[in-house]
């Protein structure tokens, strides 16, 4: 109602940064009162600093942005283009999207990514589970049920991103994992006893010794702030959760972190800091890195996880690769669940990758 040009009016909340405009919001990370313009500035600047301090990119790099159409990847695409322009990173940016074949979810979000391609002027590549593996997530869930489907999706998506990245011939993949995600992952790894992952999960750059390194420019960016940025900038994104996600164990950690953020916002960053500081011996048994015999992808076992899971799907052994079944030649008799609808697609080879 009142104009912005009355800064000294008593009782008006002023932006604590510029002290000129009226505060439009409270920063979730710091609870500072801030105006829109200053919020954009501090949000973008913090990400710029993270990129610089961690040397995420170098000039001439071709970067694929993992784009799901959701808020994180949309904002990432937007901000990276902006910073690339503003600070002359000299990067070639691409959008890389994975179609898992989840009706009512993924097909809608892919429309969003296609719009992003036009809006941000970034070339788009879509890779699909159907093409790569011969299965859509919907088909997988029909076979294995609602438990463990996230395992399949996650393993397949990781490979899919690498495949797509190889096709685009990029140097790195940037994903929109934010501070909340990483904090959840730290907690999950503690809860599930995964010390090896615990030592790696806070790294901002991962897979440097693998086919395509990945980085997470949003490592210290709060999810709430990403939402706020997208909201105020009126960015186009798809905001529904995956229809299969309510059953995920991650939900426990997520609930807890939401409650935590209410009491002490900085706790999210504190969890990440703890994760970085954990004293984990480098001689702790870490998996040795080799290659998958079936498809040549990076793997610590004989077959990579995706091949193991695929084998399970194709042979009608939905539990293969889940739980403690030992290897592929184990007694599959107990787990045989003959689905009435036998998959008509022959098992697709993972295909060789030209790395």
């Amino acid at each position: 109602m009142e104009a912005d040009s009355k800064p000294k009016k008593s009782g008006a909340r002023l932006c604590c940064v510029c002290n000129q405009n009226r505060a439009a919001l409270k920063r979730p990370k710091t609870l500072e009162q801030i105006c829109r313009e200053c919020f954009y500035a501090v949000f973008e600047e913090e990400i710029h600093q993270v990129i610089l301090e961690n040397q995420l990119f170098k000039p001439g790099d071709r970067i694929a942005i993992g784009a799901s159409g959701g808020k994180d990847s949309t904002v990432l695409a937007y901000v990276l283009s902006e910073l690339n322009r503003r600070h002359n990173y000299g990067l070639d940016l691409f959008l890389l999207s994975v179609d898992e074949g989840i009706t009512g979810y993924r097909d809608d979000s892919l429309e969003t990514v296609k719009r992003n391609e036009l809006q941000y002027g970034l070339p788009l590549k879509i890779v699909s589970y159907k093409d790569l593996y011969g299965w859509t997530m919907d088909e997988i869930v029909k076979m294995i049920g609602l438990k463990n489907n996230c395992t399949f999706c996650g393993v397949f998506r990781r490979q899919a991103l690498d495949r797509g990245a190889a096709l685009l011939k990029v140097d790195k993949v940037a994903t929109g994992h934010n501070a909340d995600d990483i904090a959840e992952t730290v907690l999950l790894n503690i809860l599930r006893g995964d010390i090896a992952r615990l030592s790696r999960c806070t790294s901002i750059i991962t897979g440097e010794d693998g086919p395509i390194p990945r980085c997470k420019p949003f490592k210290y960016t709060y999810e709430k702030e990403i939402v706020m940025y997208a909201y105020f900038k009126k960015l186009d994104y798809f905001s529904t959760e995956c229809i299969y996600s309510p059953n995920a164990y991650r939900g426990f950690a997520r609930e807890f972190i939401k409650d935590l953020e209410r009491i002490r916002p900085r706790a999210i960053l504190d969890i990440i800091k703890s994760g970085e500081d954990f004293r984990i011996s480098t001689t702790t048994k870490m998996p040795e890195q080799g290659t998958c015999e079936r498809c040549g992808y990076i793997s610590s076992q004989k077959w990579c996880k995706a091949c193991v899971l695929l084998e399970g799907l194709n042979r009608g052994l939905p539990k293969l690769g889940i739980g403690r079944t030992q290897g592929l030649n184990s007694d599959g008799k107990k787990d045989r669940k003959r689905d009435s609808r036998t998959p008509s697609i022959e098992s697709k080879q993972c295909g060789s990758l030209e790395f």
Partner: protein
Amino acid sequence: MACNSSTCNSSGCYKGYEEEEQPKPNTKAAVNGGNSCQNLCVKCKVNEPVCCGIGGENSRFCKDCFKNNLYGKFKQAVTYNAMITPPDKVLVAFSGGPSSRVVLQFVHEMQYKAQKNYDANKDKSLPVFGVGVAFIDESSTHSFTSQHIEKAIEDIRLIVSNLAPPSKELFVVPIESIFSSDGIDGKERLKELLDAVSDVTGKEDLLSHLRILLLQKIASENGYTRIVLGSCTSRIACHVISATVKGQGYSLSADIQYVDSRWEIPVVLPLRDCPAQELNTLCSLDGLKIVELLNGPCSGINGLVSSFVKVLQEENPSRECTIVRTAGKLTPFHFNRVPEIHDSNVPSATRRHQKRYTLKPNGSLSSDSFCPICNSPLKKSNFPSSLRSHGSQQNPDLFASACSSCQFQILPKDPSLMEEFLSLLPQQMITKAKHGDQGNFSLLREQIQEFLFSDGENEI
């Protein structure tokens, strides 16, 4: 990003990603009589089971086997870590709750057995260790009626006096005795100190730091050589999560080991492998009296973590164990073992015995300085600021030498209030801030101790 790639997993399938010893309770299998011992204690297969361990259907024990199982864990922890040796005088911290009660009971039983052996033995070479009990009266921080607290103290006196022979000295000490002046003065000062901390979690944590300092004081003034805490698996699991949440990931491994010798009197945790649920069951089975002081639920972060772990535990009863096991894989510090015995009065047999079981320090000597408030080891990157403060006598730069967690939740935000805050802190914390890097010095000394003569030494 709702679901992250390979870390996402549904509740039923954690098995693929961790080495679990306790199977998830399998109610389906037990019903069909597939297990022949369905109606018998799983351990002795003779008696009827009366209770369940946390393994649910798979761990139904009779009373004796249940108790022996728990006592066995306690005994193993004590022996393997050389927690209690004959010349020791052990102070058991007793809060009145079930874990305290059980650890007191177990320590007493161990002492009782040792006494019987001593009496029966002609050769009186190994004396029996002494046991004392300390109860810290925190009524000045709560609003209990004095009647309530007096009754509680009476109950505690009764419990301790019934645990004789051998008899045990009981110390009932009010929390405000941590300050050199006590009585009304101490109460006021404590109140002012706690009021000066605005963060709820900070207040609770500061109180627990004061508690441990007071235990140290009692032990030190009365010649005790060990402090025994009843911290069980459940409490440790909560501590793992809350330390992570407060940004204390570096120092976490120091707090959760069996032995913590960074204090003047080493602190030991013999119930580390015992879940709270089993300790509770034992108390009701054995009729061990508990004195519940209803300190009120923890609020703030500690309370949130506690409810979180409870939710996880309901979903899977072995979750606490897994949390502690994971955190147990973090590298401990050099002080997470009992210090070697240098007293030549101690029979050499004992010293050899202790040496054999003293864990090799697998933590490097990396950490030299400690936070003056919570005594947590500081990561090396804090060195420049602590060096800066070293040598300043009048006003140690407490803020700079404290860990980031204490800086945030305990110390006042406003620098102008710092001096007043310092004046309220107990002397022990201020002294620690001044002599920040003495830790390293004493460790070096320990290594060359046997070559030093006690006279003619020049203490720096």
